């Protein structure tokens, strides 16, 4: 996405559910989050896009799991570490994302928001709407809609 779309990135105030991925802190609107689960048994889906980690049985419902590291172009999760599953609900459909670990729910202020730096490259550029400048760290606002539409 190029310049014209950038200013459109909404700088919202509100609550973000945050999580860590490859050392960075990300956040998604808290109202999208349905639940957070520990590592689940995944059924792989041959021939699926690489970001599709597999399918999860969520109390009888079959939910697709998206590997967010893959989606953001990050290196694979180190061996032996289990991902955490964040189940989000979008347009009535549940999708889940695999992240490294879950963090707090953070109140953010639109005033702290800044569009992503132009140096941000690759897949992340489409998925990260911008960053909230928190004390001592940056909270990257993830476009959850785009992130799960692998």
């Amino acid at each position: 996405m190029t310049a014209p779309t950038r200013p459109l990135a909404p700088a919202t105030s509100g609550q973000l559910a945050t999580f860590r991925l490859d050392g960075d802190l990300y956040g998604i609107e808290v109202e999208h989050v349905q639940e957070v689960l520990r590592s689940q048994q995944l059924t792989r889906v041959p021939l699926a896009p690489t970001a599709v980690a597999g399918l999860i049985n969520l109390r009888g419902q079959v939910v697709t799991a998206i590997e967010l590291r893959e989606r953001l172009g990050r290196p694979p999760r180190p061996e032996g570490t289990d991902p955490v599953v964040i189940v989000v609900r979008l347009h009535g459909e549940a999708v889940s994302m695999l992240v490294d670990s879950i963090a707090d729910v953070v109140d953010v202020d639109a005033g702290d928001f800044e569009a992503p730096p132009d140096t941000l490259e690759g897949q992340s550029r489409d998925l990260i709407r911008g960053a909230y400048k928190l004390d001592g760290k940056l909270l990257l606002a993830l476009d959850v809609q785009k992130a799960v539409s692998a």
Partner: protein
Amino acid sequence: MDGLDDIVEEFLVESHENLDQLDTDLVALEQEPDSRERLSSIFRTIHTIKGTSGFLAFNRLEEVTHVGENMLSRLRDGELALTPARTSVLLLMVDTVRSLLTSIEATGGEASVDVSAVVAAISAAMEDGPAAPAPAPAPAPAPAPVAEAPAEAAAKPAARKAPAEAAAKPAARKAPAKAPAAAKAPAKRAPRAKPAPAPVEELHDVPQDDLLDDLSDEPLTAAPAVEEHPVPEPAAADHHPEGEAVPADAAGGQVRRAVADSTIRVDVDLLDELMLLVGELVLTRNQIVQYVGRSTDTDLVRASQRLNLIASELQEGVMKTRMQPIDHIWSKLPRVVRDLGIQCGKNVRLEMEGKDTELDKTLLEAVKDPLTHLVRNSVDHGIEAPDARKKAGKAAEGVLTLRARHESGQVVVEVADDGAGIDPVKLGARAVQRGLLTQDALARMSPADILQLIFLPGFSTAAAVTNVSGRGVGMDVVKTNIESIGGTIEVESEPGVGTVCRLRIPLTLAIVPALTVECAADRYAIPQISLQELVSLDAEKAVNAVEEVGGAQVYRLRGELLPLVRLTDVLGLTSERHDGHVVIAVLRSEGRRFGLVVDRVINTEEIVVKAVGGQLKSIGLYSGATVLGDGTVALILDVQALARRALRTETAERQESRTTSLQTAAAETERQRMLLAAIGGGRRVAIPLDTVTRLEQVRTEAVEKVGNREVVQYRGAILPIVRLDRHLGAYGESDREVLEVIVYADHGRSVAIVVEEILDIVDGEAAVRSDIDDMGLLGSAVLGDKVTELLDVRAAILAADPAFYSHSSAPTGVSDSLLEV
């Protein structure tokens, strides 16, 4: 009772529902007399009943509803104010309507109910202008009894209205005026008091009531409670006895439940929800049964068995609630057939068998259009014009037959006509002409296969089959629609006799029986509707039985070549089975059979189909996912997509090789896949594989002699035999018990080529050719490191059957006229 036809029955069910709504509405209206909405709703309901009753010639019903409607319309338009009295007459009307319906239901008529009183009451309630509703006529004679009542009732609470004695008249008169004006004050009193006035017969009660009304609440609770009853009763009293007596004589008791009581209408969404829950239950059941299977606790085992049973029955029951007879969609077809018949100048009679066959509502919707399309096709293209039929020695009237039946967990629906049928020769020629098929490919197709061409997309153009227009119009769409609900379609036709289109549809969509298989340590589910059989080959057998066709594997299933597709290859995985054992699921899709090689067959179980997320839909190989007994998710394979994907490459390749083969004969030989066979004396010949339709084994004793030729009976036909060894001057063993036979077919004629042994199938492209021209050979080549002779198939066949090609001098460029064998 038998006169109670469908329309009336439907009317009754509907009206009963409407009446219940009416009761609710009327009562609610009393609470909020100004509600336009309620009034309109009531008006509509009455109007509906009136309309239908007029149509069905229920005159009394019409009469009652008509006056009721009049009153309601005036209420609605604000010409009348709703008073409790008017509410009462309306309620009375509802009761009367109800008893009329009961009577209609019981006797088929309404004669037993007298409506004049109600009509009069309603009219009266309307006549007296805004200020004087029903009570008006009542109070007039009323004072008399009232006068008595207070007299004796000094001690009773009622007596406390003694002072009212004087006010008896004013009170009565005042009542109506008060109702609208002082609605808030005696709101709850007024409605109670008013019901009484309505029935004209119950006059003596009325004034008392009215008076009580004015006095205090105490008597109200007592007196009106008693008094109110007469209101519905006069109406009910008239017909209730009859209502019950009549069915008793007519139907011999109350065996037959009232129509309205025996059915309910349920929101389809609710049923879907139930179905979903039952699906979950089935899953949990599977899980528990699987878990308990390992247990030794007999009580637990018994309980789980019961659970198993109950869950199955529940599932069946819920499924049934969604079942509807196919007649729901068939009932529209006679009209379609009639209109279309007239339009096409054809005489068509529609016959239906199995109207009651039920299938799931959603499926019913899904097959509606395809079915209509097939019926239209049959009338339009299948059945001939009367003249043509007479010429063909048939009755001028064509017969179109719809048949439906349940068959092994599926619904089979057939659309059959006794029309001209589809001529495979013309159809094939047309396909070639349209460039959908090469002549060569066509030549090797059986008539049955050729018929399936009508489902090819792009084949749907006019003049494809008959002179009128195409049988194939939109047939690809029909096929797609049917397959999208997991069904299959096939067509059979005999020229001059007729055509049958057969749909096979699953009973329901949500829960399907499936085969679970393992492949590369994952499990997949294959809907059983596509599954034909399972073949398991141990390592030793597999080595011989699975043959290679230029890299593509085939298995000889009872003589037929079954292309094999390895699921691991399709999915890009690596098999975990290394013992050489081969498990083949024989699947059928779009009229083609193929064998899906999997690692292991796990189980057959009922699975609940879950949609997969949008991210996976684009892959196209999975029709959904399911949760297995142990809670893991398994993907459901889309057999149609699998077939298309796995077999397409192969077909495309073949297509390609054929196209080039048409250009030069030399190139043809080079690019073809060859069947290698030993013919004795260490000699090997190669036969172009695309001329081979089958590999068979024939017992020597089955070979018979006709003149100096050898023949064998094969599938109801007589096949001339050519022994390659003799033909080519080799010397094979002649005392074999079983002959290896290659069946070659062209334009409906076949010969059996006997070889010593079928060795292999190789890709001819790599061959190094030389031109050793010998009789019966085209040359030789190095195939599989050995010099192999290339058989001149044509010569070999002519040796066996000199007449084989006599119908077509040029086998590669067959014109339409020559095709008409």
